Each structure stands twice: as structure tokens, then as C-alpha cells.
């Protein structure tokens, strides 16, 4: 499944025809391995040509323009990039595209049709966010967690959510929203 398409792609690339980069070395024939991937993202099949090591975070953000998934640290420490791989919450900054295979990917954009997933509704109900930047990751982690543990204790919530940093300090509201969602019994 590996193709040496990079150069051809480059030549077809819109930026190439512009004269913005006259001094650059774009004509060097480097032979980086690119590969074509077929992914199921938010219920749609997407074709992507990319270096197989590229983390899903950047595939989503740069290549598919699904920017709801956020970059915070790039080293699996903050949880801003959390998506679902199948039913599991994963850190997309650590998930190379080549490791996805047949599994379904869900991002914040695909969590519900109209933003009406019980967890999203609970977030609206508790008016959780401040800057809002961490919240997509928090919500994706919380939804995967509640699916496995629909009636969590406070300690279980803290344990499950500990990998998601909120720099603005909305932790008490996040916990409340998770409990609100759990109590709505329809997660």
C-alpha cells in the first residue's frame, strides 16, 4: 500500500505554482515514504495520502480540517487531543495513522448530530467552560468513560479524567456535568 507519490503530489500541489517560494529547495527529489489510508471518521470514509507516522491529531487538523480536536502538549500529557478509536478514548497526538486500521474514529464534530449528546447537553447545562480550549478533549474522554461506567463515583470520575488538563480550572464543573450526564441515564 505504499506509494512513492510524494513528488507527483508536490507538483500538483497548488502552492507549487505560486512563486512565493522561489528561493526554496522544493525541486529536490526527496523520497519520503507516503502511504494511502482509508479511514472511517465520524461515519464517513476518508482517503488520505500521508507519512504513515503522522499522528491522527495532525491528520484531523491539517489534512481533514477537523479542528475541534486540539493540540495542547503533543506528548500524551494534557488530553486536549482526545478522540474515540472504536469505543476507547485515545490521545490522537500519540496515535499514528498507520495504527488505526479498520477501527472507527469519532471526533468531537461527530459525537452527535446536533450537539445533543447527553454529555454535551450536560456541559451546556452546567455552563462548564471558560476559555473552552480543553473542553472537546474533556467531553470525548467523559463520553467514552461513561459508556463503560454509567454510574461512576467521584473517585472514579477523577481517576478517569486525571489525564485531561483544564488550565482555566473548570474541574469542579466538569465533574458536576459528568454526574448530570450520568443521572440523565441515557448516555
Amino acid at each position, binding site marked *: 500500500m505504499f506509494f512513492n507519490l510524494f513528488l507527483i503530489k508536490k507538483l500538483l500541489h497548488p502552492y507549487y505554482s505560486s512563486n512565493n517560494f522561489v528561493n526554496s529547495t522544493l525541486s529536490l527529489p526527496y523520497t519520503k515514504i507516503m502511504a494511502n489510508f482509508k479511514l472511517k471518521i465520524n461515519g464517513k470514509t476518508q482517503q488520505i495520502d500521508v507519512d504513515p507516522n503522522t499522528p491522527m491529531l495532525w491528520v484531523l487538523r491539517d489534512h481533514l480540517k477537523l479542528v475541534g480536536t486540539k493540540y495542547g502538549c503533543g506528548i500524551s500529557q*494534557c488530553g486536549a487531543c482526545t478522540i474515540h478509536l472504536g469505543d476507547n478514548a485515545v490521545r490522537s497526538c500519540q496515535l499514528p495513522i498507520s495504527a488505526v486500521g479498520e477501527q472507527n474514529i469519532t471526533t468531537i464534530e461527530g459525537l452527535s448530530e446536533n450537539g445533543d449528546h447527553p454529555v454535551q447537553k450536560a456541559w451546556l447545562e452546567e455552563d462548564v467552560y471558560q476559555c473552552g480550549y480543553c473542553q472537546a478533549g474533556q467531553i470525548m474522554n467523559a463520553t467514552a468513560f461513561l459508556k463503560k461506567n454509567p454510574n461512576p463515583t467521584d473517585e472514579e470520575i477523577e481517576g478517569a479524567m486525571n489525564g485531561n488538563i483544564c488550565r482555566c480550572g473548570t474541574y469542579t464543573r466538569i465533574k458536576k456535568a459528568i454526574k448530570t450526564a450520568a443521572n440523565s441515564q441515557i448516555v
Partner: protein
Amino acid sequence: MTRIKTQYNRRSFIKVSAAAGGGMLIGFSWLNACKPNTPEPGAGVAVPKEWFEINGYIKIGDTGMVTIYSPNPEIGQNVRTSMPMIVAEELDVPWENVVVEQAPLNTGWYQNQFAGGSLSIRLSWNALRMAGATGKRMLMEAAAKEWGIPVSHLSASNGIIKENIGERTVGYGDMASKAVGIEVPKEVELKGVKDFKLIGSSIKNVDGKKIVTGKPLFGLDFHRDGMQLAMIQHPPAFGMTIKDFNEAEIKSMPGVKDAFIIDTSIEEPGGFDEKGFKQLIAIVGDSTWQLMQAKKALKANWETTGELESSDIHVKRLEKALATGEVQESRMDGNPEAAFKKAAKIVERTYSAPFIAHNTLEPMNFFANVTADSAELIGPTQTPEALEGSVAKLLKLPLENVTVNMTRIGGGFGRRLYVHFGVEAAAISKKIGGPVKLIYTREDDMTQGTYRPTYRSIYKAGLDENNNLIAFTVKGAGLPEGPVFPNRFPAGAVENYSAEKIKADTNVTTGAWRAPRSNFTAGAEQAFLDEVAEAAGKDPIDFRLELFDRAIKDPVGEKHEYEAERYAGVLKLVKEKANWGVAKPNVHRGVAAYFCHSTYVAEVFDLSIKNGKPIVEKVWCAVDCGIVVNRDAAKNMIEGGVIDGIGHAMYSQLTFDNGTTHQMNFDKYQLIRHSQAPKEIEVFFVENEIDPTGLGEPGLPPAIGALANALYKATGQRHYHQPFVTEKQLVG
């Protein structure tokens, strides 16, 4: 009933025109005089010209729907909801009929926008009320004209105008187009505080739905077709500059379009131009991941041009500054030295705090599109005007050819007052001759400076034989700025008092960090007062109230930057709400109160020890921020401040070796997490009719003192040096 003028020197603050699609468009100066809270003395004073700049709009449509175009970017303080609430209150329309919209980009409508931190609401309060009240008045005058009766025979409420005696009613929508022809009143009446319906209630964040569905809101999400991406690499240490790098190799890497060195030095830099490094390597390409790989492959030669500082050096410098340093500001009442000689008991303690980073969760980034004669910038900034100025200087363009538009901001805490990342984006765009979005990695963000300074303060108190506080001194040094506020409490409450603010040098760059200086001083002072109260054998709240009593009845000295009644007020409120003085099994309590950004906050911490670890069970907060605009959102801000305060006091620090920080990402730099946050926070407000004041900062400072004092009760150990977890005696 207050009346407010809509003009100044015969120039109107308000402009009214017909709205496209029918109805009335009221333009006004949304943030007249609303400048960011300038941390540097002398920077950015309000210029009257800008009071007249139209940058806020209210559209009253023929249907009665009201659209409020808010020029405010959102940094997380919920101003995009609370500010329109103020307009809607005075206009007197139901919130269901209100739509809040952001300025569409590039319309030229919003040349000057500000995100003013805790000052936002405070400074635009009158402008927003005036605009709403003017709209209401003009609609009423249009109805009066239509019906041929005096306007005094009408009243308006909830978007409906009605005759006081009589049956006739008409909706705002029906009058909107007609009101366009009415002359703008020179003066309008504002509502009495008692008549507020929206203000003081809880309105949900207008952007909530967009946030929970992952809509592109932030600078990092901004995209324009044809745009390139760029990353930078700065020298690995403060005190180093770039010489050269493996340019050819980097340029040949996959996805890399160009690589070069940029110089962002400008003439006469202002306070917001602070930054770690002026010369940087820039790499341009089409995908973030490929740029990250190129960054890893960089081999650069760096030159040491300054001292390579370490944390040891920093501590020594602070100690030396405290002994012999240059005093920046001071105050002296009475004769503390003589009083200490007479004192029956003396308590003296030293407190310190490390450099810390802002670590906004959205790293620095900016979009720039520079052409031969213009520059367009879009991204997360709190100071678009400063950025315009700096970009104009760098590119040698006339100021009017530089435009800055703002996106939602993924956390500020003071970080986005500084404009260097926008300037860098402009430099890169100029070099490549096309649009580019600059993205910092977390490591770039954490290691390039504009940190909260490191501080060290010595507090000393003297008690007489009756356990009255007769002398109090504080001497505080910082790299580079000292943390002391000479005229704040307990100035005015102690007969013999002195305060000295001392500076010292460093080449680590620093900047305003949430509640500048207060973020250290509150913790140190409030922990110290706890110890002094203990030495005096007094309850910590009673001890403070005694001091406020003195400051109220017979203040010592001239200037006091606080109102002792309001300070005492929040302490009394928290005392009552928390049931202070009633012991609970296995609950250890600490209290603190602080005043900053014109707001008073007192907090009580309830702490327990579980498995040898301190758990904050509950935090009680009493807040006097004047009129509360959006109640639940205000609580959210205070809660965030409390959690932020605990986190940084307990866990966070930057330590240095050879000019380099040990911490470069969240693996080593510890931020507070879910399990470490308080189990519950309850916020109470003092109800009064004072104009609203800041909420972004004031919740944080007292949390550090209250935490330290509760920890002492729980463990018997005092904490003097942040972060507390590194102090050996801490349990767990």
C-alpha cells in the same frame, strides 16, 4: 436614577443609522477607555479620541430581534455574554430576543478591539449602559411621535412600549425603522440598580454550543486557502543567540518549503514587546507534523552572549537584593525599628515563589499575510493595538495599513498581552511573500519566557505584651520586579509600618501573570498574618477584623489602596457562611482575604487528610466585586481562580540550569489535575450597588494563603516556599 451624557465636547458617542434589511443600527464606542490592564507603568493610557471610535453595534430588527455585535474577543472570562447582558438590560429587551454576534472578520468595522482582563466590565460598564438606554429612549420617542403624545406618557419594558394611561402598545420591532429618524438624545436616564432584571441573573455562555461541538473558534483553528504553516526554533537558553543552522538539510526535508532566520527586533519596543529571543529560526511548510520533524532535525550553532543563569544564582540574587538591593518603591509609617525593640514577641519569616509559565492550553500562534504595502493579522491577542504598532514598526508600514483581527483565545492569564508571536508571524509572512500561520509547540511556548517573576519576601511583625500588633515590615524582591504593594493592607492598620519593593536583574524575560505580584504577595502575607495571629493567641479572622477596625476608625498614614469596610465585609461574610469557629471532625481550616483588581475576596479552605494526602474538601468564597453581572459565570471565574491558585502554589515551577528550564512540557511541569482540585467550591457575593469590578484575577491570590493556613492546621507544618510539594515536610 442616574443620567448619563451621550456626548462630550459636542461629539456624540453614538451613531444611528438604518440597518440593512430593515430596522435600526446603533453604533457606539463599546469599550471607551477600556484598555487592557497595563502591567508596565506608563504603558497605554486611555486616549480620548478612542472614546468616539464606533466599535460596538446594536441592531434592532423589524421583527424585534436584537443583534448585539460584540467586538470583544473571548479569553475565558465570559465577556461575550456578560457585556451584551448590560446592553440588553438598559435597552430592556427579553434575552430570548437577543443574538450576540462576533465581528465578522475583515469588515473594517472593528479596527480596535480589546480584551481587557479584569478591567473589561469595569471600564465599559457605562458605555454599554448608555448605548442600551439610548436605543430604548429613541424607540420610545419614535412611538411618542407616532401617537402624538409626550414621551413622558410612555414606558418601555421587555421590548414593548406602552402608554401609561391607555391601551396602546407597540413592539420595538415596529418602531425600529422609524426611530432611525429621531435625533440622538444628549442625555439618557439609566435604570436604577433595583430595577435590573437581567443583570444579576445567570445567563449561559452564548458560545457554549460552539464549544461543545468543536467549532473552529481559536487562532490555532484559523485557516485560509493557500496559507502555509510555520514553526520557530529559539535558542536553547536565555543568554544565547543564533549563529547559523543546517539550512540546506532542513530545506530538503519532506514538506518543508523554506527555512531561514528572522530578526524581530524593533525600534523603541514597548511594554508588550517583551520576549525571550529576537532572532529565531523559522521553518515553513504544509503540515504541522512535517514541521515538527524538521525542528527535530535542526542542527544549529548558538552563541553565548549573556550569562547562563541557574536557579541557585536566582536565589542568591534575591537574597542579595533583600540585603542591599535598589528600592523601587517604599512606605514608612511611625518607627518600626524602635517598635520592634519594645515588642514582647517578634515573628519573622521568609517566603518565596519560583518563576512560572502561563501555559495557556492553546499555545501561541498567529496568522499573518504581509504584502508589499499591507499586513493583515488574525489570531489570539489581548492587545491588537500594540501588535499593530509593533508590526508597523517591523515592516516599516504606515499604521493604517496594518490590521489585526482577533479570534477566541484559548487562555490568557496575561500571556497574550505580549505581541511577539504576531510579530514573528508577520516577519515570516514577509519573507515568504504569502499568508502563513505560525504555530508554537508546547515546548516553544513553555521555554521562551515572559514568565511570572521569581519572588522572595521577608515579613516581620512585633506584638506588645497585650498581643497587639505594633509593628509590621515587609521587604520583597523579585527578578526583575519586586512583589510588594506598599500602600495595600496592612498599611493603615499598624502604627509602625514599612514596606520596600526591591528589584534585581535577570536575563530571563518576565511578564504579567494572572494577578501580577498579588499572586505571590497574598499568599505570603496571609500565611504570615496567620502565624502572627497564632503568636498573639487570637482567632485569625478576629485578628484581621481588629486590624481593619483600626484602619476604619483611625487609619495610619496617608494613602491606602483599599477600603477597609469592604475588606472586613468579605471576611465577615465568609465567616458566617462557612460557620467559622465550629469544629468539624477531621476538617482542618484555613482562611485568607485579599484585595486586587478592585475586588475583595475572602476564602476559607476545609482540608482533610486521606491516605496521608491533603484533600481540599470545600472552599468557601466571599466576593465583593460590586454589582454582579452574570452570577453563575462570575462564580465560574472565582472557582477557576481558586483552582489555579492551589495548582500553582502546590505543584508548579520552572527551575533553571545554564539558562535553560528543566521543564519544557507537561510531563515535568506539573499543573493541577482533576483529582487535586477541591471537591466543592461555594461562592457568595456581597450585594451592593457599586459599579462592577474584576473577577478574572481576584479569586486566585487568597487561595494560596488559605491553602497554606489549612495545611498548617492539618499537618502542623508551615509552608514558606512554593511550590509546596517540594517542601520536604509536606505529607504524602
